[in-house]
């Protein structure tokens, strides 16, 4: 059952009604039951058992760690922590790519469990004593699709009682609707063009390749952020707030900034649980000392060099998290690491050149240039993600520079990529609307702005959105709504 299946929404509606009829203090049990049933029904009892074993292992590890720490047995606590973490990593990287477990969302609950165990070990949070609540934290069903990745400390609302709030529910429903538009109206159309080009790259050379690269970025954004909209909207209907995962990433002026705005919860998770601990290791401290003492590197320089090295495991993790094949480690990991390191190293000389040449770096045109540059760099990285192998990606990149064919923008060629002219226009219309809304949301939530309008106008907007999903959505016989791209992780 996916987020675009009608069955999902039927189940969601039923659980929502039951949820608000449950007595105060027992709603979390309802959510936990729904989540366990969800895993059982969408996966199998074997996967449910695996899930429960992992969660309970982490639950009791956290309790044992706290007791050992209280008893001043720090080393033993460390051993228990290490054992728990190993089990979680094994579940993420070994089990998840097995066909039988692919749909379990194991990556998401796996890294949530790592953060829970780590926070308990670091004494940032008090371990949960009720195993049912730990099961709910790890298995809260909307999160199993694609995150966002949440921390135990920020999910207290999971266990609180919520009374039905019309506005919250309406806002949640609107967000779900908007997510569906992004997925089945925009992303599904973008996918048609991208697939047409990438399925025959020898036929579609030159600028076609770059169009596909740019549109795949858009597809990925619409797909993933649409999924997040649905997940966050579903949670909002239950009265549970989840962290945002996207902050207008296409406004980023550097690759580093891009990753602070794209899949925000993964980035912050990797920073807090991989990079910072790595920087605090004795090995890194020794390297810092060596750089300063033996090589006479300045304090700031040594700090920068160490942070670049500390970023390496972070980006390797991000790459491997996207998949076990080498293309992920290179395209989604090392490529971005190289970009970020170079950005940092070259920023000072670049600033000097800009000043000497008298560039107006505060102008919109300069910001636009930097945004386009960032977009291209990220799009290249994502080509590794989209294309089947590293070799194929380099081959396609070569085809991209093999011919300069700007006439395709004028002779109607772009309407021969699997979508009719009307469909391309609909796609562009909704794409612009989606990008504008993500931009406008920075200032003031668009839903709040709509909520301040007259009732009839508001309802016309909502009816139009529902109508758009039903009429313009790519679904039905002959079309298969593909899973959300990030659901596979």
């Amino acid at each position, binding site marked *: 059952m996916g987020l675009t299946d009608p069955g999902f929404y039927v189940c969601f509606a039923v659980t929502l009604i039951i949820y608000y009829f449950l007595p105060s203090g027992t709603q979390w049990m309802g959510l936990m039951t729904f989540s366990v049933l969800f895993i059982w029904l969408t996966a199998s009892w074997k996967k449910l058992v695996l899930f429960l074993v992992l969660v309970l292992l982490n639950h009791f590890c956290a309790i044992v760690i706290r007791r050992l720490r209280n008893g001043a047995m720090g080393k033993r606590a460390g051993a228990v922590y290490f054992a728990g973490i190993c089990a979680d990593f094994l579940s993420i990287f070994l089990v998840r790519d097995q066909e039988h477990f692919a749909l379990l969302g194991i990556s998401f609950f796996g890294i949530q469990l790592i953060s829970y165990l780590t926070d308990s070990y670091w004494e940032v949070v008090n371990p949960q004593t009720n195993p049912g609540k730990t099961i709910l934290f790890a298995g809260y069903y909307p999160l199993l699709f694609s995150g966002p990745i949440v921390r135990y400390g920020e999910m207290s609302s999971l266990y609180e009682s919520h009374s039905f*709030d*019309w*506005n*919250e529910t*309406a*806002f949640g429903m609107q967000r779900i609707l908007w997510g569906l538009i992004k997925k089945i109206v925009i992303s599904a159309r973008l996918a048609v063009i991208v697939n047409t080009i990438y399925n025959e790259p020898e036929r579609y050379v030159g600028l076609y390749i770059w169009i596909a690269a740019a549109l795949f970025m858009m597809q990925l954004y619409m797909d993933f952020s649409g999924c997040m909209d649905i997940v966050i909207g579903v949670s909002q209907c239950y009265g549970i707030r989840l962290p945002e995962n996207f902050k207008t990433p296409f406004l980023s002026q550097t690759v580093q900034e891009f990753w602070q705005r794209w899949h925000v919860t993964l980035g912050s998770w990797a920073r807090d649980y991989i990079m910072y601990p790595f920087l605090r290791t004795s090995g890194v401290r020794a390297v810092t000392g060596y750089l300063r003492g033996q090589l006479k590197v300045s304090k700031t320089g040594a700090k920068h060099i160490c942070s670049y090295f500390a970023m390496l495991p972070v980006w390797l993790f991000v790459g491997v998290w996207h998949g076990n094949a080498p293309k992920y480690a290179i395209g989604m990991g090392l490529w971005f690491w190289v970009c970020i390191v170079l950005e940092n190293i070259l920023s000072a000389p670049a600033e000097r050149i800009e000043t000497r040449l008298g560039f107006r770096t505060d102008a919109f045109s300069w910001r636009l240039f930097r945004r386009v540059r960032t977009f291209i760099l990220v799009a290249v990285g994502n080509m590794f993600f989209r294309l089947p192998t590293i070799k194929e990606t380099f081959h396609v990149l070569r085809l991209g520079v093999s011919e300069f064919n700007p006439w395709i923008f004028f002779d109607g060629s772009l309407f021969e990529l699997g979508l*009719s002219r*009307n*469909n391309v226009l609909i796609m562009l219309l909704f794409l612009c609307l989606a990008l504008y809304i993500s931009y406008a949301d920075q200032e*003031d*939530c668009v*839903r*709040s702005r709509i*909520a*301040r309008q007259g*009732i*009839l106008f508001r*309802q*016309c907007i*909502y*009816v139009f959105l*529902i*109508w758009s999903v*039903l*009429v*313009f*959505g*790519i*679904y*039905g*016989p*002959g079309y298969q709504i593909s899973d959300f791209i990030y659901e596979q992780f």
Partner: protein
Amino acid sequence: MNSSETRITKRQMAFRGMLFLALLYTVLYVTFRVLWLWDSGYSRKVFEEFYDMPRHSIDAVCFGSSGIREYFISVEGFHRCGAAIYNLGTSNQPFAATKYLIREVLKTQDPQVFVIDLRGVTDDVIVTANIRKVTDSMRFSANRKELIDVLLSQPIEIVSDETLDPMDFYFSFTTYHRRWENLRRDDFGKTDTWMGYSINTETDDFEGEPLSIHDERVPLPECIEEVLTELMAELETLDQKVLFTITPAWYDKKSWGMMLSAVDRLNASGYDVLVMSPEAEETELLSDRDFRENDHVNTYGAMKVTDYLADYLSARYDLPDHRGDEKYRRWETEYAEFAESLEKSSE
């Protein structure tokens, strides 16, 4: 803004909810009507007008494929003899659908006679589009669901460019929503049809081999035999009279032989079968004017067949004459429009 800052009363909530549902219902109702089945045979119109008929106002109903669909003009039949004989035929209507269409008719009508054309027994392959012409035109009901299940699971070969998922047949909007970029005048109800019949005055002169020289029987496929058996069992339970027909056309030897086999079975079971030969004098058909191809008449031919069949049904089953009856004004109005339109297209 915190969305929960604005609290609303239960009355406001109910009002908003009702307003929203009313708006949504209106928009979706119009959308579903517009973005629905379109086919050159106007099958949707055939059913829509049937459902619009006042209860218990129809005297006879015809079922079948183009063998009846293009041969009988309901409004012309009414003009001829005053009986309300409704043609519920659709292009290549699956023969297996007949039983369920009879049940559909009996929900709102109580006709004296059912007319079932036999051309469908020659179809041992069905295209999904022809299944949809029936199932997508019917209203939602358990009968429709059962018909879909039967048609999709029958042993007859189904030619399809889509997956045969029953859900896509139960909820056809999943198929038709993408028609938004191909909408035409007809989709908004502006069709030049009269009880689903559209004028076609194309002609094609040809000389077929006389059917009378063939009397060789060709066995019906087992699956058609089964359907025929089931249909006869269903007809046994009804009060209505039943007339099977073979409408005039130059059939190939195999199809003609299969229909003769069906006629033998039906005669043996005591059913009436009316065989109309294209060479027979009583229908007055002219091969160079009344046919648009060897197995279909045009509107001129259909007028002649309709007149003949309407006279036959009225006389044999003593159907009432409703001409001048206010309740049947619609039939007269539609006939007047049809006649005017035919005159224009003949000029």
